[in-house]
C-alpha cells in the first residue's frame, strides 16, 4: 500500500512523495464514486421493486365485460323498438333489428377503437315470436268473439313467454275469488294460475296458485288512477316486488295460456311468445288493431356474438338478448 505519511520517509524526494499522495487521493475519490453509484443502484432497485409491486399485474377484463353488458342492454332496447315500430312482417322486423344493432355497434366500436381496443357485437340469430296485445283499456278480457273462458295461445313448441303485463281497472274486478278473472298457464300437465279480484276493501288481491296449491296471495292498493299494473315477467305489482309471479312463466314445450272469467276484468295486457304465429293456435285473437285483442309478429329474442380484443385480451362470448 502507498505511504500516506510523508514525514515517516523524510529522505524521499519531495516531488515524488506529493505525486504519490495526489494519485492516492484520486484513487480514493474514484472508490467513493463507485460507492455512491452502488448506493444509487441499490436505492434505484428498491424504488423499481416498489414500482413493480404496485403495477397492475392482471389483465384488465372489465372493458370486455362492460361491452358485453352494454350490447345486451342495447339489444334489448332494439328488440323493444322494432317490435313497436316495424311489427308488420318477420323480414322487416329482422332487417330493422339488424340495422339498429349495426348502428349501435358502429358507434360503440368507434369509441372503443380510440382506446386501442377492437370490439364488435354481431347478431348471430333472431327468434321470431308473436306479440299478443289488447290496447283498449275500456274493454274486458274476453276473446275477440266475446268468450269469457278462452284459450289465448297454445302450441306444441311454445316454450317461452316474456313481457307478460296486465293493467287492470280495479273497479271492474270480481268481488271474490270464486268467479274471479284468472290466467291459467299449463305446461307439462302442471297448471299455474294468477287470480286478480277485489278483496272487499279498496285493495285488490293478487293470488298465485301452483297446481292447486296457493303459492302467495297479497293485496295491493291500485293507487289514485284506479289501475293495477301486474308485471308477471318482472315479478312486481304496482312497482312492488312480487317474485312468486315469475313461477307462472316457468314453462316448457307445449304451453297453453287460458283466460277464465274474462268478463270479470277490464284493461290492457301484452305478452310476447317465442313462436311465430304460424306455429301457434290463437283462436280468440284477430290480426289487426281494431280494439279487439290481437296478435302481431314480434321478435322474441336474439343471440349476439360479442368479440373484444385488446393487446393482452381476446374475449369472445355468445350472449342472449331477451327483454323482460
Amino acid at each position, binding site marked *: *500500500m*502507498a*505511504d500516506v505519511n510523508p514525514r515517516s520517509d523524510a529522505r524521499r524526494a519531495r516531488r515524488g512523495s506529493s505525486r*504519490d499522495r495526489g*494519485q*492516492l487521493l*484520486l*484513487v480514493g475519490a*474514484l*472508490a467513493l*464514486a*463507485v460507492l455512491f*453509484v*452502488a448506493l*444509487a*443502484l441499490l436505492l*434505484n*432497485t428498491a*424504488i*423499481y421493486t*416498489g*414500482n413493480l409491486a*404496485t*403495477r*397492475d399485474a392482471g389483465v384488465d377484463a*372489465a372493458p370486455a365485460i*362492460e*361491452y358485453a353488458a*352494454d350490447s345486451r*342492454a*342495447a339489444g334489448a*332496447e*332494439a328488440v*323493444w*323498438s*322494432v317490435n313497436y*315500430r316495424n311489427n308488420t312482417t318477420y323480414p322487416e322486423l329482422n332487417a*330493422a333489428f339488424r*340495422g*339498429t344493432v349495426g*348502428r*349501435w355497434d358502429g*358507434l*360503440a366500436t*368507434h*369509441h*372503443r377503437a*380510440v*382506446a386501442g381496443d377492437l370490439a364488435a357485437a354481431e347478431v348471430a340469430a333472431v327468434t321470431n315470436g308473436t306479440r299478443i296485445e289488447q290496447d283498449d283499456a275500456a274493454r274486458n278480457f274476453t276473446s275477440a268473439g266475446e268468450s269469457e273462458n278462452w284459450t289465448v295461445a297454445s302450441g306444441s313448441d311454445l316454450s317461452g313467454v316474456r313481457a307478460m303485463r296486465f293493467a287492470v281497472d280495479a273497479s271492474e274486478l270480481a268481488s271474490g275469488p270464486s268467479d274471479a278473472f284468472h290466467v291459467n298457464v299449463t305446461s307439462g300437465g302442471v297448471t299455474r294460475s294468477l287470480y286478480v279480484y277485489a278483496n272487499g276493501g279498496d285493495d285488490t288481491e293478487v293470488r298465485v296458485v301452483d297446481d292447486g296449491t296457493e303459492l302467495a296471495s297479497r293485496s295491493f292498493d291500485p293507487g289514485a288512477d284506479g289501475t293495477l299494473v301486474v308485471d308477471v315477467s318482472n315479478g312486481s305489482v304496482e312497482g312492488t316486488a312480487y317474485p312468486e309471479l315469475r313461477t307462472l312463466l316457468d314453462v316448457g314445450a307445449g304451453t297453453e295460456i287460458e283466460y277464465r272469467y274474462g268478463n270479470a276484468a277490464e284493461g290492457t295486457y301484452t305478452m310476447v311468445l317465442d313462436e311465430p304465429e304460424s306455429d301457434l293456435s290463437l283462436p280468440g285473437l284477430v290480426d289487426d288493431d281494431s280494439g279487439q285483442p290481437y296478435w302481431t309478429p314480434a321478435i322474441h329474442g336474439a343471440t349476439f356474438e360479442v368479440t373484444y380484443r385488446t393487446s393482452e385480451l381476446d374475449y369472445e362470448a355468445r350472449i342472449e338478448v331477451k327483454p323482460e
Partner: protein
Amino acid sequence: MDRGQAHTLEAITAAMILVSSLVFALQVTAVTPLTGSTSSQHIENQQAAVAEGVLATAEENGTLVPTLLYWNETAGNWHDATNDGYVRGPPPTRFGDVLEAAFLDRGIAFDLTLYYVDEDGDRQRVPIVDLGTPSDHASTARRLVTLSDGDRLREPDESPSSTALGDASYVVDDSDPEQTLYSVVEVELVVWRM
C-alpha cells in the same frame, strides 16, 4: 511497486465506474415515470380505480345519464356553463355532487368529457367539466353510454323536462332516426392530484 498497485486499483475502479454508470443508465429509464413527480404509481392506481368506480356506480344508479342530459336547448350549452363547460367545479347534479365528494374535496382535480361520433363519422369532444390540463400522472376512466329517443332533457333543478331527446336540439345528433336508439357516447373522466 506502490505506484503500480495504485495504477491497478485505479484501472479497476475506472472500469467499475464505467460498468456501473452503464447499468445505472439502463436501470434509471425504468423508473422515469416516477422520478419527476410527487405522485406514485400506487396513488395513480388508486385514483384510476376510484374514477372507474365512480363512473360505474353513476351508470348503475342512473345518475350519469341525467348529467349528460343537463342541457339548455336555448343556450345550446349545459345549464349555466361556460363554452368550455363547467370550469369552477362539477355541475349541480347528483353525479356532480358525487364527483365533488370523491375528488375535489380530497384535492384531486378532474375533467369530464363527452365524446360522440358526428354525421361524418368523426369523433368530437364536448367538455362538461374542465378544471385544467391534466398532469402527466393523470388516470383515465371511460364508459360507453347509450342514449334513447325517449330520454328527457333535464331542467336546471335536474327534473325531467317535457322535451324528449328525439325532438330536442342536443349537442349530439340522432344517429338512428328510425328506431329508439339515439346515439352512443363515451364519457371520459380524467383525474389527477393537484
